[in-house]
């Protein structure tokens, strides 16, 4: 076993996903099988190999700091599930 039900519970919390007991069982089996497969990477000797996060050799792309039109407030709020008085409404965060 690469990971157990407890690991999946932890990952689900980190992922902000509410899972049913049934989902937990299903995902544990499936993720375990996938990780089992991924184990093939341990056959590869990567000592001295640089990691590659990106295929293009780009670092900090700079451009002049020029004021451009931005999204109007109405457009920014147009898709909000619960807008109120020009704001995004969320449940209470601070105790």
């Amino acid at each position: 076993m690469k990971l157990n039900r407890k690991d999946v519970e932890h990952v689900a919390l980190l992922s902000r996903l509410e899972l049913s007991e049934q989902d937990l069982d299903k995902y544990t089996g499936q993720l375990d099988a996938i990780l089992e497969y991924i184990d093939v990477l341990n056959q590869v000797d990567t000592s001295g190999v640089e990691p590659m996060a990106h295929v293009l050799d780009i670092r900090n792309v700079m451009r002049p700091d020029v004021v451009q039109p931005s999204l109007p407030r109405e457009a920014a709020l147009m898709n909000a599930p619960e807008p109120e008085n020009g704001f995004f409404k969320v449940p209470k965060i601070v105790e």
Partner: protein
Amino acid sequence: MDLFRLKAHELHEKLTRREVSAVEITQSVLARTDKTDTVIRSFITRTQDAALAKAKTVDEKIARGEAVSPLAGIPGALKDNMCTNGIKTTCASKMLANFIPPYDATVTEKLAAADAVIVGKTNLDEFAMGSSTENSGFFTTRNPWDTDRVPGGSSGGSGAAVAAGEAIWSLGSDTGGSIRLPAAYCGIVGLKPTYGRVSRYGLVAYASSLDQIGPFARDVRDCATVLGVIGGYDRRDSTSIHSPVLDYTKNLGVGVKGLKIGLPREYFVAGMQPDVESAIRRSIDELVAMGAELVEVSMPNTKYALATYYLIATAEASSNLGRYDGVGFGHRGEGNDIVSMYKRSRAEGFGPEVQRRIMLGTYALSSGYYDAYYLKALKVRTLIKQDFDRVFEKVDVLIAPTAPTTAFKVGEKIEDPLAMYLMDVCTIPINLAGVPALSLPCGFADGLPVGMQIIGPHLSEEKILQVAYTFEQAHDYHKQMAPIREVD
């Protein structure tokens, strides 16, 4: 005459000779879609009125004697993960079922500037995660060649629409094969350009270091035309490439004499369907008969590509999809505190494959596992890229199957994620290396199309299209359209 059966370049000629109008072309495609899409189900959203209005403006331009672009008045479709101002963009997810972008993707803008007619937004595996469209949060698209089968994915709606005559061309996005697989399964041409050739601004992100937009078309010339319209540097995508966009249609006929074709033996995987393999090998022999030279090559790290991909892509996805929190846009679930609201929103909004990939990526990035999984994958990615660098010192292009099998049946693999992932074994290494690759029809196996993949070095789209064109013109696969059992 059935205008929907013609290619964009044929329609463009008829338009400029004033033999037909853009409105007539658009009406033909829309009427075809009315008839076929109840069965094929390529579209999530259709935009008939806007399409006809755009066609009318093209007809007016032509009537005034103005020159028009090769895509002007030619109906096409966009995968529903590309933003369209004022038109729903759902990513085939319940999360974004009602999302109406307040802006256009760069490709949407470029197509509008070229006066292309957009007939709708096509179905996909939710957030482009999948190989069949069965992971769509709404419905499964059917393969026009056999409606019991999948069209491939994730851009299955865009592939099926072009194959069924519901669009003349379309756009898809390709993170691990999502353009090339549907192109192969649906018997059409699909190109994944070099990473950065086409701006990703306004493409809903899945795995940002791998995602790339590209065209589907019914022949190589049309594919080249669409790439010419959508390619180019964009200041809003800092990973887009500063390199001139060519007229990719200009030198299509140069032939393959003296061309060095590499045959990577690792792409002929165990378990490959024998008649798929024989179709590919026969096609390579034909290219050799036309003057190309064949070189057997080895890319030893190919067998690690799938595992590498499923760590890198899911890690990037887990981060990219963090934005769906039920606050700014998208589905919102009930919850008394913020964390329960997040958890409920995401559990209700995302389907199982998306949840699975978010969790896998989160796990690979989590404390204690980062080095063993994510960092390890980034190092293996370097080795995979080096395989490509090494072979392209010796050969001009590589030829390989696009997929190990022809289109599989709906339901066949949906319960086994790993079996589904294996469909992408020949396409995934290309995304990891960031190089361009095209799939084109090269025969049939038991009545289903077989796709051949042509892979080239960084920014070699012109060369790839030339090789594809040479092969295509010696056959008539591009002249055959899927006979839809229920309709034709």
